[in-house]
């Protein structure tokens, strides 16, 4: 039995947080829909192209190799050190940035669903994350081969990058919610978000290493949550130590951020349909 009651009544922050949490959990019931939406996009993207996903893998492989070689020349670093670092880091960054960019239009693209039957906002955004994780897993094949080629040994510590990925996904969920809801309400934000993502890319150690920064500029890495997110997935894989403070920061970012944004989501989740 479904009971919907008026949004007109007054509620406090905790009530909204509970509503938000319920919707986030409820979204998981629509896993079939998530699966169809996520694969439909991939299917559409690669329809009528026989090599399909291979093209994306190839283009990122070329990009990574070129950047790796140019960078190792410019900064006089041995390629075996810079190439795995850039390759893995770049793919992790692409995962983060494409989740955010896709979230800006996810709700508008699905407006047809929202207007014709009850549609879980959470499910639509889970589909965004699912699709990007799928692309990420394919994209990671080449960087992992590079790591092996340059003699990086995978051990138990490398598995920590899966823990890092889990924290990244949880952070991705609430960021996607906030971005999607804002972009549904204010249409001019869509462009702003993509510029901001571009700027964050330059400020995040993906193509460069934090230890090469002069001490007075270290603050842009130390206080950059995206630097933490990239490092907890990349560094265990390329054999770089991850400071404990990064793990603590990542947990805070994932769970603290989720809890802090629940009331926001609970408050606006059912208003979204009026904005589409």
């Amino acid at each position: 039995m479904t009971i919907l009651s008026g949004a007109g009544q007054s509620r406090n922050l905790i009530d909204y947080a509970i509503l938000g949490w319920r919707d986030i959990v409820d979204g998981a019931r629509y896993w079939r829909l998530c699966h169809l939406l996520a694969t439909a996009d991939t299917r559409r993207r690669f329809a009528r192209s026989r090599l399909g996903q291979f093209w994306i893998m190839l283009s990122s492989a070329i990009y990574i190799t070129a950047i790796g070689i140019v960078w190792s020349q410019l900064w006089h670093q041995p390629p075996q050190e810079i190439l795995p670092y850039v390759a893995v880091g770049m793919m992790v960054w692409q995962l983060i940035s494409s989740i955010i960019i896709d979230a800006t239009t996810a709700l508008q693209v699905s407006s047809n669903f929202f207007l014709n039957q009850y549609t879980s906002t959470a499910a639509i955004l889970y589909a965004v994350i699912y699709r990007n994780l799928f692309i990420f897993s394919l994209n990671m094949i080449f960087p992992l081969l590079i790591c092996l080629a340059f003699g990086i040994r995978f051990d138990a510590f490398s598995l920590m990058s899966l823990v890092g990925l889990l924290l990244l996904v949880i952070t991705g969920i609430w960021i996607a919610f906030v971005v999607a809801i804002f972009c549904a309400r204010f249409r001019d934000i869509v462009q702003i978000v993509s510029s901001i993502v571009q700027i964050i890319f330059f400020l995040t150690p993906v193509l460069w290493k934090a230890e090469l920064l002069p001490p007075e500029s270290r603050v842009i890495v130390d206080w950059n949550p995206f630097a933490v997110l990239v490092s907890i997935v990349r560094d265990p894989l390329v054999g770089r130590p991850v400071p404990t403070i990064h793990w603590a920061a990542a947990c805070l970012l994932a769970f603290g951020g989720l809890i802090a944004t629940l009331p926001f989501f609970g408050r606006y989740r059912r208003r979204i349909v009026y904005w589409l």
Partner: protein
Amino acid sequence: MAHIRLSDVGVEFPIHNSHSRSLQLQVFGKLGGKLAQHKQAVFVQALQGVNLEFKDGDRVGIIGHNGAGKTTLLRVLAGVYEPTFGTMSVEGRLSSFTDITLGMDPEATGLENIIFRCVFMGLSFAEARRLSPSIQQFSELGEFLRLPVRTYSTGMFLRLAFAISTSIEPDIIVMDEMIAGGDARFLEKATARLTNLMERTKILVLATHAIPIMQDLCNKVVWLDHGEVRKIGSFEEVQPLYLASMAA
């Protein structure tokens, strides 16, 4: 048992123009003062104080002029809009036939689309696969089902959408105008199937301007006027009053 109850339901829409849609204008509107008159959000009261109760066996027709709130009411029932005021409770599996192509993907084949559309209507993959043969047969599309749907003509596409959408048996059907698809012969077959489905379902809520259809199908008529329920009753009771108000 299926059941729908709306108590004192009201729906209010904010109308967002290009000003309120823009963050820039929202922010600077707060800083300055000149733009203040553009800032106010306009609200439309689409439904107001609606009290309705439908139970098993109810065949409800909704009439009213354009903009009376028919579609809004159907969307509230389908769970699209949460009531701004009042409470609504729905018991039973509800299917909304407002867009029968929802969830279909032009790039996928007809066979894949049968599964997609069924899952969008809330079935599991296994249930969808079980229904698939009878849908294929009813659609009469034969070998075309192996081709991507984008190669279909509009008629063929609607035919498939119709065959899938009418293959499940929900407790409650919500429909905005009658659905149909295909050529004259298919239309006859489709109408028979739809009528049969509407007779079996526990509750039907249909908004239509086609008075004869409503007379045939509905045992209860709700007349909406400016977002309020003007009258509820049998077709014979409500329809003359409605026509009289239209003439006036």
